[in-house]
Structure formats: structure tokens, C-alpha cells
């Protein structure tokens, strides 16, 4: 009986304690960011790891998602003689939702998991401890550059994904299916608003997702049990938690931004 109660108590308190640690972790991370003013060079290597190396998957996925949107949109709109709205449909879906969300999900799988495994391994092999013994703070030297690089990379990747996606839609609609090119762009420009759609969708959403995805990835790595099972568990958790957090936040942000309520 007492054992059961203890179990229940633990299952409530453990996640709470973990959330507390995650918040402290985030604060220390923010505090360490100023160090990068002295050592901007540290950013370059990390931008390469999380940004440049994520480009192939972002480019290919963006192109295909855009092409599928073009096909599906055409199949639905052609019945109403409204294929000239295809540009609007493709652009709005990508700019408002699919661009930021899919980029964040792909980023979690490609870069977030690598961040977690990298930090977890540095912990397991005592690299973080030896750094501390050399009086170098891993938050400044290891975590902050990775966080800032990820924070910069996610919006850029989102922009690239969205732009390539629209290009994919254009290829299918205009080049392949013969929708009028002028109408494709003109309708899009008439219906996609800069502040409500591009700034809210591509920019603000991706900034929020960038913070969340990198925070989760680094925290999971830093908290990982220093064993191979611990690291593989942490990597899985990064992908799962980031995906759930991104989808949940996306709903919240959409409700706030696009005034559904």
C-alpha cells in the first residue's frame, strides 16, 4: 500500500523535478550566451553541424512537400475551375503551417538527435568533467554555441524549406499541369500577407520552435545517463518530446496568431 503510494508520489514528483532542472538549465544557457561575444568563432563549427549538414534533407523534403501540395490542390480546385488559386493554397499552407512545423520535425530528427548524442557522449567519456577541471565552463564552451547556432539555423532552414516548397508547387502546377503562371503568383501575392502570414508563420513560429528544439536536445544530452543505453534513450526522447512540443505549440500559436478564437 505504502509502496504504491510512494510510486504514485514519485511519478508526480520526478517529472516536476525534471521540469525544474530543465528551467534552470535554460537560464544557465542564456547566461552563458554572452561568452560568445568573446568567441564568435565557436559558432561557425556548430552552424555547420546543425545548419549546413541539415540542408540536403530540408531541400529534398521541401521540394516534395510542395509538389504534393500542388498535385493535391490541383485535383481539388480543378472541379471548381479555381486552379488559379493554386498558388495561394500552396503558399498559405507552407508559410503558415507546413514550413515551420515540418522543418522543426526534420531538424529534431537530423540535428537534435545528433546534439543529444554528442553531449551525452561527452558526458559519458568525462570530457565535460575534464573541461570543468580545466576551469572551463561547458555551458559557455560547449552548450551555448550549439544553442545559438541551432537558434539561428532553424528560421533559416524554415525559410529555405518554404521557398523550395513553393517552387515545387510551381513546378507541378505551372510547368507540369499548365496552370497560368501569372495567376499563380498574382493570386499568391494578393492573398499571402506579409505580417499576418510570413512574419507570424515563417519567422515567429520558427523562432519559437528553434528555442524549444535546441533546448530539449541539449538538456536531454546533458541529463543523459552516461551509458550507451542512457544515450540512446535520451536521443529517442529528444525526437519524441520535440515532435510533441512542436505540434502542441503549433496549435497554440496558430490559435493565437490567426485569430481562430
Amino acid at each position, binding site marked *: 500500500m505504502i509502496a504504491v503510494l510512494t510510486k504514485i508520489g514519485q511519478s508526480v514528483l520526478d517529472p516536476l523535478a525534471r521540469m525544474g532542472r530543465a528551467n534552470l538549465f535554460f537560464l544557465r544557457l542564456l547566461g552563458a550566451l554572452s561568452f560568445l561575444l568573446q568567441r564568435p568563432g565557436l559558432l561557425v563549427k556548430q552552424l555547420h553541424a546543425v545548419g549546413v549538414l541539415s540542408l540536403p534533407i530540408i531541400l529534398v523534403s521541401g521540394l516534395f512537400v510542395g509538389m504534393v501540395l500542388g498535385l493535391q490542390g490541383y485535383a481539388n480546385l480543378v472541379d471548381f475551375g479555381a486552379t488559379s488559386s493554386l498558388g495561394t493554397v500552396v503558399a498559405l499552407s507552407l508559410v503558415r503551417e507546413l514550413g515551420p512545423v515540418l522543418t522543426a520535425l526534420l531538424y529534431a530528427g537530423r540535428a537534435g538527435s545528433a546534439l543529444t548524442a554528442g553531449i551525452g*557522449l561527452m558526458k559519458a*567519456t568525462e570530457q565535460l*568533467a575534464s573541461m570543468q*577541471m580545466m576551469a572551463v565552463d561547458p555551458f559557455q564552451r560547449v552548450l551555448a554555441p550549439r544553442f545559438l547556432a541551432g537558434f539561428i539555423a532553424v528560421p533559416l532552414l524554415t525559410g529555405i524549406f518554404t521557398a523550395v516548397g513553393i517552387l515545387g508547387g510551381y513546378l507541378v502546377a505551372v510547368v507540369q499541369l499548365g496552370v497560368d503562371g501569372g495567376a499563380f503568383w498574382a493570386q499568391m501575392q494578393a492573398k499571402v500577407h506579409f505580417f499576418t502570414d510570413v512574419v507570424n508563420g515563417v519567422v515567429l513560429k520558427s523562432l519559437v520552435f528553434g528555442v524549444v528544439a535546441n533546448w530539449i536536445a541539449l538538456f536531454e544530452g546533458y541529463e543523459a545517463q552516461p551509458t550507451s543505453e542512457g544515450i540512446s534513450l535520451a536521443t529517442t526522447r529528444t525526437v519524441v518530446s520535440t515532435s510533441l512540443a512542436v505540434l502542441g505549440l503549433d496549435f497554440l500559436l496558430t490559435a493565437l496568431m490567426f485569430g481562430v478564437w
Partner: protein
Amino acid sequence: MSTSATLSHTALPNNKPLITVRGLSFHRSERIIFQDVDLDIPRGRITAIMGPSGAGKTTLLRLISGQIRPDAGRIEVDGVCIHQLGRRELYQLRKRMGMLFQSGALFTDLSVFDNVAFPLREHTRLPAHLIRTLVLMKLESVGLRGARELMPAELSGGMARRVALARAIALDPMMILYDEPFAGQDPISMGVLIKLIRTLNNALGLTSIIVSHDVKETAAIADYLYLMSDGRVVEHGTPATLGHSASPWVTQFMHALPDGPVSFHYPAPPYSADLLLAGAPA
């Protein structure tokens, strides 16, 4: 209280020990690792801490360097209580400490050269050519100047540990903690290392703490020995006194005899009971 009594064996240049440990207790989950341990590490000497595997030697080094906090007791390094320091002061103190990790703990994304240069680049503003000179000097002293372009993954275990040693002494610290410096070394590099540790100690006057179970080598260079087991200091003294100790425990350990009071096993229920239990359908 019993500080001076334990250390009356030699006349020290500065009579106060560099490190004093008093009443140290520490546990991990259910297991008590230290119980009321007192230790003194004299300045400018080589002190060795020996004991069977799992006795808590690595844990002791981590406590002394402030990586973990004791449950009770005081650990003073150069007059300050290390587990009460804030991060900034702790880091200030650690710039004067070097530590050789049992695993080497090299940065796997940096080459051998960059690993040794790491503390210099982080803590000094020396020009690149001076850093190069210093790094090559340190690498030369561990015999690995030729390996400077290699990545840690390309090194053998013993080589990695020598690179880690070069990195630990890069900033010319006042004290070095060596965790198993001799493990995985062939007889020649072992000899080189012993000489290196001695030289560093004599030439620079630094304080060394060596954790090891290589009794012969350690006894050869240590000025003072602590033997630990079951969470307490079993015996301490100069290598000469311990070598002729009357205690059966010390004799067994110092002469590596298989039979005696030292337990080779991690604490466990009686062997026969365990076996019988496994035989019975659970």
C-alpha cells in the same frame, strides 16, 4: 586535531599541508563509500593513494577537486574549503590544479595538438607561436611530439593517457591529481612516466597525488602512502615503513598476495547461498 601527529615523518618546507581532509563521509545511493576519513597531502611531495579496485580512489579525487560534494566533513585545499566555493572561485582554484582522468577524457573532436593547447588557449592570451612551442614541449616530455596531428580515436589507450597528462600539465599547475597514470603503459613508457612525475615534482615543486594499484612503481616514487579499503584509511606511512608493516592487511596488499584479509570481491551474500538460490526454482 591529530593533524600534526600524522605528518611528523618529514620536515616540510611549508609546514601546512596543501590538502587536509577531516571527517569525510560520502555515500552513493545505498552504498557508503567513505566514513569519517582523515587525510593530509603535504606540499611539494608525491602522495599515493592505494587500495583495491572499487575502494573509492577515483571518488576521493573527485571530492578533492570539488566535482562532487561530501555528505559530511571538510576538504580544504590551500586553506579554502573547496566544497563551499562558488563556481567562479572554484574555477579560479582549478586553474592551479591539473587532473589526469582515469579514462584520459581527451576531446574527441580536437587533434592531439589542439587538446594540449586547449587550456592554454582558454586561459592565456599567448600568441600562436608561443602556444605551439609550449605544446610541443609538453608533448615531447611524454614522448608523443610526433603524434600531434593524430585524432584521439587514432591513439592507443596508453598513448591517450600520456596526451591527457601533457594536457594536465600544460598550465604548470601547483598540484596534479593522477588517476591511474600507469595503467596500460608498457615497461618503457612506464619508466618514462615515473621519471616525468618525479621530475615535475622536483623541478617545479608541485604537489602530486597518485591513485594507483601498481604497488611497486608507486612505492618507488611516492614520498608517502595511504592505503584505503572499505571506506576508511587502513594504513599510512612512507613506503619503507609500510613495506615492513606488521599488519597482515598491509602485507597482503603491498606484496600482492592472493590470500589474506583484503577482499577481492564486491560485497555479496555468501557464495554458496547465492548458488543454491539460483538452483532453486525462483
